[in-house]
């Protein structure tokens, strides 16, 4: 019977060592006699030990959901339910956390109470996409568990061929390097796409992530189709007296080695009086010198975002980084945030209409070329989009004069502003 706690000699070895052990947690739940989840977790431990023995997984997908939605529940049915019957259904609810993953303990305790009542008592904080992963629930309990979480003000995240749960960095809530209101931008963009998250019918998944600067703490450049990174258009702010303090702390050689010489565009120079000269026109806002000199240097005042499109992981053509589609857009007022929402809508619509089945945004762009994508979403070409111009002459260019005219009229319009 699966209700006896199985022997788990392999998993037991993962209780050794100083790092917190997930196995200890699983066993504590399995040992919690009288709780509804105890037999489930005994059975789960049995199946997991079986996986460790045979080096294979034994879960298969299926169709489980909540009323009104077509995604957000990850169905898991055991392929070895004959041996481990109590955890035969072990689904996950993906729940979107508050932007920036801030919690009061009352909320976390309520999550625990709900998951103790309906689920396995096992919660991951958080999954790779940024969801609260409430793991291990039977098909029958999915709806009532979701209803209680939903009454708390929490909603299901994404799964399958739809918009996925997003992440924004800690940003403005606790970081002086924040260049826009990351949480606000994230909520405005994602909450405008909920239909494509909860009733997914896109060619494949679509992810958006929001980092406040080039340090990209939520890994937007690689992990999202729509990456928003904070930046600024004016000068780095310098407190020269603090630069002198930093030079005193690191020594001149240390300051040159760790700050000046690590600038990727050679935009820094230490003056003879230990003040710092910055060639702001060459600066690409990479954040390095600001990271080292947190007191002396800070991001400029004219803040905004760079938007990169098309990051993804290996399936199918190989890993891709997002590439620049909007070099800069200021983020001052409500109109700017509305602009970002509109851009995200245009990108999502173009993806929905033009990507092949199971093709990500980056793969679509690789197939059709960046120029076709830009024309589709209504964005003009810009030299910031490339590492360098074309090197191959094999292209038909009989529309050259018209394209030059477009560039000149854009330049003229910008100069007139």
């Amino acid at each position, binding site marked *: 019977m699966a209700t006896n706690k199985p022997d788990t000699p392999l998993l037991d070895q993962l209780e050794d060592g100083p*790092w917190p052990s997930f196995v200890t947690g699983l066993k504590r739940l399995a040992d919690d006699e009288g709780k509804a989840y105890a037999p489930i977790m005994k059975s789960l431990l049995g199946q997991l030990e079986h996986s460790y023995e045979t080096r294979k997984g034994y879960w298969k997908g299926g169709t489980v959901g909540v009323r009104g939605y077509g995604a957000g529940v990850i169905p898991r049915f055991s392929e070895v339910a004959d041996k481990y019957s109590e955890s035969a259904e072990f689904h996950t609810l993906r729940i979107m956390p508050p932007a920036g993953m801030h*919690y009061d303990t009352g909320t976390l305790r309520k999550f*625990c109470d709900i998951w103790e009542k309906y689920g396995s008592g096992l*919660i991951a904080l958080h999954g790779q996409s940024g969801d609260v992963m409430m793991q291990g629930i039977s098909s029958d309990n999915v709806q009532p568990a979701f209803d209680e979480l939903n009454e708390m*003000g929490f*909603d299901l995240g994404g799964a399958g061929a739809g918009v996925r749960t997003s992440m924004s960095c800690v940003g403005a809530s606790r970081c002086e390097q924040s260049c826009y209101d990351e949480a606000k931008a994230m909520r405005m963009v994602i909450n405008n796409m909920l239909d494509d998250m909860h009733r997914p019918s896109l060619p494949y998944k679509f992810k958006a992530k929001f980092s406040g600067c*080039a*340090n990209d703490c939520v890994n937007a450049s690689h992990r999202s189709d729509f990456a928003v990174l904070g930046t600024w258009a004016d000068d780095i702010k310098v407190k020269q007296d603090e630069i002198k303090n930093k030079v005193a702390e690191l020594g001149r050689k240390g300051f040159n080695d760790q700050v000046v010489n690590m600038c990727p565009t050679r935009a820094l120079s230490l003056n003879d009086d230990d003040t710092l000269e910055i060639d702001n026109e060459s600066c690409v806002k990479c954040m390095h010198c600001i990271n080292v000199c947190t007191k002396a240097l800070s991001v400029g005042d004219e803040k905004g975002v760079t938007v990169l499109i098309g990051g993804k992981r290996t399936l199918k053509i190989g890993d891709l980084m997002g590439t620049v589609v909007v070099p800069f857009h200021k983020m001052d007022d409500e109109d700017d945030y509305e602009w970002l929402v509109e851009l995200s809508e245009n990108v999502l619509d173009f993806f929905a209409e033009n990507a092949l089945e*199971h093709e990500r945004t980056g793969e679509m762009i690789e197939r059709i070329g960046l120029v076709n994508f830009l024309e589709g979403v209504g964005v003009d070409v810009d030299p910031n989009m490339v590492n360098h111009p074309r090197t191959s002459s094999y292209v038909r260019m009989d529309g050259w004069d018209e394209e030059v005219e477009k560039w000149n009229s854009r330049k003229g319009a910008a100069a007139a502003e």
Partner: protein
Amino acid sequence: MSEAQEAPRMPDECGVPDPMPYMHPALKKNYGNWDYHDRPQPGVLRHVAKDGSVVWTIKAGTQRQMDVYTIRKLCDIADEMAGGHVRFTTRSNIEYMVESEAEVQPLIDRLESEGFPVGGTGNSISMISHTQGWLHCDIPGTDASGVVKSLMDELYKEFKQEEMPNRVKITTSCCQINCGGQGDIALNIQHTKPPVINHDLVSNMCERPAVVARCPVAAIRPALVNGKATLEVDEKKCVCCGACFPPCPPMQINDPEHSKIAIWVGGKHSSTRSKPSFHKLVAAGIPNNAPRWPEATEIVLKILAAYKEGGKPWERMNEWIDRIGWPKFFEVTGLPFTKFHIEDWRGGRNALNASSHVHL
């Protein structure tokens, strides 16, 4: 009430919650008004707001896959010592915020005594990004939770101190889709044999054209086996990536012996200093040796020791290698360089050295 009157509850499509009601009051008060930060000691950040108010953040590691007892214990600590608020990082570390320096050390002591290591800041090795594995994934070749636990036991000291050249982000992935993402070091499953096909099940379980389309090297074609519509794999073309397995479970790619672990280095998401970069293969053929993966761990420790020894302050793994060159990397790590390290995927020629720059 009759059944007809009981309209089923429909979801309140409320979306991503506003963080403000959940946020620590000191963060809410200074939202968008921070001046600078420093790191008084490993595991502790000190943020100073423009109005002069100060918040200390204490960061601690967790096992990510948490039972309700662990979460409640973390909540107890927050209620007693940090104003009842916490936040989590993308790498499953928990952060407690306090407003006076006197509260910092007692909180560190409490977290450590409850088994949560304090660290993960600055140039430390932070928690490993973590996929689902045998615990919950439908296609895993290994168990992320176990790999992560085994490695973090070995990296425990480096989590708690800031002694690496720069931050180290390690990732794990249980299949070649690479859900763990790019990392300074990535431990990913690498299959080495084509899928084993159960021809009796394919026609019922798989949408065959979709499976054919999924293959990155066009090695799958429709076939008839014992009178049944199925799929077959051209094993000369197959790169054993496992892309066919998720849409077609009868094409089993996982194998206890032939699903190996490969190690990749130099991935970087950020645009800090250098542009983002992909991780590169350095070692493969490593046994998927549950429950402790000692062979994989040994190679990771070797790479980390070489980077710690040779990296200059602020150099990430890829930047260190860019400076010293790949020949030196293979020399100082003692890892063999083989024909499999040479890229032949699309764009592969860009990975070749088109210059006379050689490291001798």
